[in-house]
């Protein structure tokens, strides 16, 4: 369980996070959605003890991140946004160092690493140097590394950024599988479809504040199920409808090109903040 109460973070006079309150339940796959610079990575860095916070209270499975930092860190695994594998070490060595940092005995460590490499389908690259791997493989190795110590909470900071669609979907399948195995997952992303596909609950973060926090279905349903986009005076105007028939009827009586589509989280984010996620 992740609990954040009245969290604030200042970088000198700039306030990066404003009074954040969140509760992520055990076993939940939670997405933290927002545009670049909204404060997603700062939140993850605070939760994982990489950055100090200015005020508030943060705990992981009941361990206070500030007062019981080492215990809190044992609860979680982190996959950061940037690739941070040791490029001069092999895949196995990268995972082995991680296991040593968490004081896992050698026999158990070796077993767990081999098990994870199989699980993430990278066992055949076990002895390859990290620098020899493709971007998608590096991401999978990073996820495997974060799981070596069997954390109960997994933080994924933009885990599919820069990957092509096919690899992204493969990573999504892995994330779903990890959650089904019982882990709590905290995912940051600015990919709408990623949050929609994976998350049970989504929080919208905008300029350091949470503007909404609900299930993807509820967020979308509030807008209506269907949207019609049309360009008026070089500007995109969108109308929302509960029923497809109403949306179709509206489209039919327009004399400009219209596009009928399903409502998504982007529409919800746009209506709440006035801006797009991407």
């Amino acid at each position, binding site marked *: 369980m992740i609990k954040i109460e009245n969290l604030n973070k200042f*970088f000198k006079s700039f306030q990066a996070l404003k009074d954040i309150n969140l509760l992520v339940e055990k076993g939940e796959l939670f997405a933290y959605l927002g545009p670049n610079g909204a404060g997603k990575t700062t939140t993850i860095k605070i939760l*994982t*003890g*990489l*950055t*100090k916070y200015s005020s508030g209270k943060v705990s992981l499975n009941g361990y206070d991140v500030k007062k019981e930092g*080492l*215990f809190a*860190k*044992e609860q*979680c695994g*982190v996959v*950061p946004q*940037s*690739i*941070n*594998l*040791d*490029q*001069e*070490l092999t895949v196995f*060595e990268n995972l082995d*160092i*991680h296991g*040593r*940092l*968490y*004081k896992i005995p050698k026999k158990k460590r070796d077993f767990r690493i081999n098990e994870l490499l199989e699980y993430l389908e990278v066992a055949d690259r076990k002895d390859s140097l990290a620098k020899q791997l493709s971007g998608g493989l590096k991401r999978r190795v990073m996820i495997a590394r974060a799981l070596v110590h069997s954390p109960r909470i997994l933080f994924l900071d933009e885990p599919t950024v820069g990957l092509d669609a096919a690899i992204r979907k493969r990573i999504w399948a892995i994330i779903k599988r990890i959650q089904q195995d019982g882990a709590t997952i905290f995912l940051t992303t600015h990919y709408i479809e990623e949050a929609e596909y994976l998350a049970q609950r989504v929080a919208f973060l905008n300029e350091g504040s949470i503007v909404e926090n609900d299930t993807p279905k509820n967020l979308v349903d509030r807008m209506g199920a269907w949207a019609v986009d049309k360009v008026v005076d070089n500007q995109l105007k969108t109308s929302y409808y509960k029923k497809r028939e109403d949306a179709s009827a509206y489209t039919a009586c327009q004399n400009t090109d219209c596009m009928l589509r399903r409502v998504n989280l982007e529409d919800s984010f746009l209506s709440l903040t006035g801006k797009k996620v991407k």
Partner: protein
Amino acid sequence: MIRGYFAVYYRELLIMKRRLPKMIATMSVSPLLYLIAFGYAMGGNVNVDGHSYMEFLIPGLIAMSSMTQAFSIASEINIARFYWHIFEEFQAAPINSFAYVLGEVCAGMTRAVLSVIVIILIGFLFGVSICINFYFIAAVLLNSFLFASLAVGMAMLVKSHADQAMFSSFVITPMAFLGGTFFPLDNLPLWAQKILSFLPLTHASNAIRKAAFGEIPEILSYIVLFFTGIIIILWAFWCVDKAKD
């Protein structure tokens, strides 16, 4: 308190193992050039305190090389921090800052000891053998401990590789030349001797040289190196902790 330090050290050992031939070649170049240029070419007929200049020079090079190699861990930390972001992996792990510092200091000391072995072997090639005793080993370890600690602290303070290079140019390089490595400080004016006696490398050079000659070094040098090293490692710990803005 130091739980996990070995994982940090082990990572550096793996990298060192992979780069060992290159590292040994790099560690050999400067001492070899100094010995040829200053030892053979210029100092062939020079005697210092009853020893040939070559005998005088090798302990100085050992002091200098143990300092520079221990300090070179700063560049490795910088690359890991700014370029590969590996420092985040250590920050996210359940180890405290002191364990991280200790792991990196051990790595710096290992590099220093390796460079000392290289110089001793080169010394043999030039027909110079030195006395390796407890005093010698203690002085080498204290010197490398001090500069590896300084390296970890500095690596946390600098904001770029350029800052790191600047610190080396203004602090490490002058110390390497003025810390009693290439010439006896007794030849300098008293005021200069007094200023240079504040440099840790001066104490390391004196202690290593005396021990290498089979004499008993001044205990003051060991006290200075030990306590300066302790102060610097505590400062390095503070710097690592501070790195979590």
